[in-house]
């Protein structure tokens, strides 16, 4: 039986290879002037060569290469669908190297040492109804097989359009922290090393989680202050508020950039004022605020907009901000421009015309970074060289409504 199956499978594989060779001939005839060979053409050539050499096809389950600085994780919440998707992309070759499934409005995380990626997620026993289960899942980044599945008691997750800093890893990647909104603000502590849920920490009316050490994180509070929370090894957490650092009518966006390695929190407002806070000393040090736009530009309607509107490159100390001319209250509409700003001086270094409607931006943390510009409408990731402002490659067909770009600061 097995033998018969193998024969059929081989026949099918040879059939595919024959088709590939025919397609290759057509492509070579039609596209010989093309500057660069596409992945499809290269694969067709290789398959044709294998076929000509009589090499048998031997299907296997592939492994992705280990995570590097240019592994891009794109999360697609699919416009609030019950089932969501992750795409793992190699930024150098602009190829999808893996996918993973998620539940309802997952919060993705990527380990800073590349040892895992994962999510806090939610599933229901009858697709979108029935008993609800919240859980944390860690996956092996090469096989995408689960390496931990930890249930969260009493469905504590905050179901919200994906804000990356509503779920965070501590710098040692041993603890995952997630936010609970209702019935009261709290942060859940998940022991990844011990593969178990630890406890909920009650907090005041504060939002987002920015771990500054393995047992300390900061939050942003309704009154405009930050809250420092000591997780407490003995189970006794401690909290302390900072000064109020912004006015009540300065609206800070839901997608600040945070570099856990440098402790830099970069937080733009609706008008492009950028607050920067240095958390590296385990106390909040407020740096001088930056204005991304001049008063004249603001009068012309220039303002930030999109989903992940800001990215921060640690080594070069640069801020990348999506901006465009827009009407008031259109802050979630995509932007066609990217503003590169020196975080230290506040000086604008470059204004890149992206030529696409971009909702989210990310940056690799290597020395010569790539810029990742994600279009929810196009369902495509455009990869730029931020130095030249040139688009170098793109990846399309990324689900239904991809919104979140994540990289690992390795």
């Amino acid at each position, binding site marked *: 039986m097995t033998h018969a199956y193998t024969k059929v499978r081989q026949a099918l594989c040879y059939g595919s290879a024959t088709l590939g060779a025919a397609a290759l001939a057509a492509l070579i005839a039609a596209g010989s002037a093309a500057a660069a060979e596409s992945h499809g053409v290269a694969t067709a050539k290789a398959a044709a060569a294998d076929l000509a050499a009589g090499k048998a096809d031997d299907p296997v389950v592939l492994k992705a290469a280990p995570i590097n600085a240019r592994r891009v994780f794109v999360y697609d919440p699919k416009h609030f669908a019950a089932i969501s998707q992750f795409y793992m992309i190699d930024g150098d070759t602009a190829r999808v190297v893996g996918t993973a499934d998620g539940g309802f409005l997952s919060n993705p995380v990527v380990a800073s040492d590349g040892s895992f990626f994962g999510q806090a997620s939610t599933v229901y026993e009858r697709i979108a109804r029935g008993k609800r289960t919240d859980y944390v899942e860690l996956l092996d980044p090469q096989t995408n097989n689960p390496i931990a599945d930890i249930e969260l008691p009493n469905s504590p997750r905050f179901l919200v359009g994906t804000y990356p800093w509503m779920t965070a890893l501590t710098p040692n990647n041993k603890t995952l922290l997630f936010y609970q909104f209702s*019935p009261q603000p709290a942060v859940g502590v998940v022991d990844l090393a011990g593969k178990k849920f630890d406890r909920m920490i009650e907090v*005041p009316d504060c939002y987002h989680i920015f771990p500054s050490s393995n047992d300390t994180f900061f939050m942003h509070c309704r009154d405009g202050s930050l809250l420092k929370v000591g997780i407490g090894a003995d189970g006794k957490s401690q909290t302390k508020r900072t000064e109020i650092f912004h006015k009540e009518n300065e609206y800070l966006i839901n997608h600040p950039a945070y570099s856990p390695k440098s402790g830099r929190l970069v937080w733009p407002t609706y008008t492009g004022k950028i607050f920067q806070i240095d958390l590296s000393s385990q106390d909040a040090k407020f740096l001088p605020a930056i204005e991304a736009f001049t008063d004249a530009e603001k009068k012309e309607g220039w303002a930030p907009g999109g989903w992940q509107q800001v990215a921060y490159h640690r080594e070069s100390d640069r801020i990348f901000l999506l901006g465009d001319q827009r009407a008031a209250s259109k802050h979630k509409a995509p932007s066609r421009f990217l503003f590169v700003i020196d975080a230290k001086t506040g000086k604008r270094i470059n204004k890149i015309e992206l030529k696409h409607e971009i909702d989210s931006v990310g940056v690799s943390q290597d020395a010569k970074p790539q810029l990742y510009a994600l279009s929810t409408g196009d369902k495509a990731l455009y990869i730029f060289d931020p130095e030249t402002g040139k688009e170098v490659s793109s990846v399309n067909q990324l689900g239904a409504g991809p919104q979140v770009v994540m990289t690992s600061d390795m």
Partner: protein
Amino acid sequence: MRALAFAAALAAFSATAALAAGALEAVQEAPAGSTEVKIAKMKFQTPEVRIKAGSAVTWTNTEALPHNVHFKSGPGVEKDVEGPMLRSNQTYSVKFNAPGTYDYICTPHPFMKGKVVVE
């Protein structure tokens, strides 16, 4: 029409029956002399009130933003008591049948907190 009226009556009966069994009882009409709590500026204006067992508290929303009163299940509260969203000038009354301290929030604004101490 009759079926609709019947369904509405049944729903009202079910809700009352569910609450009447516990320490908290949502009541259509608060008895005279019940304690008033105004809701304004994203706050319960009297965040802590003290009453005698058997008396009631009436909440009145005085702003355009809808608010409610939500007692989560816990010690002394068998099941969640989640009041309806109140629009401007609408009221909601709860009679407290047993002594204890009853914490509550507003469902969509969990930073709005209040407490009823029943002696």
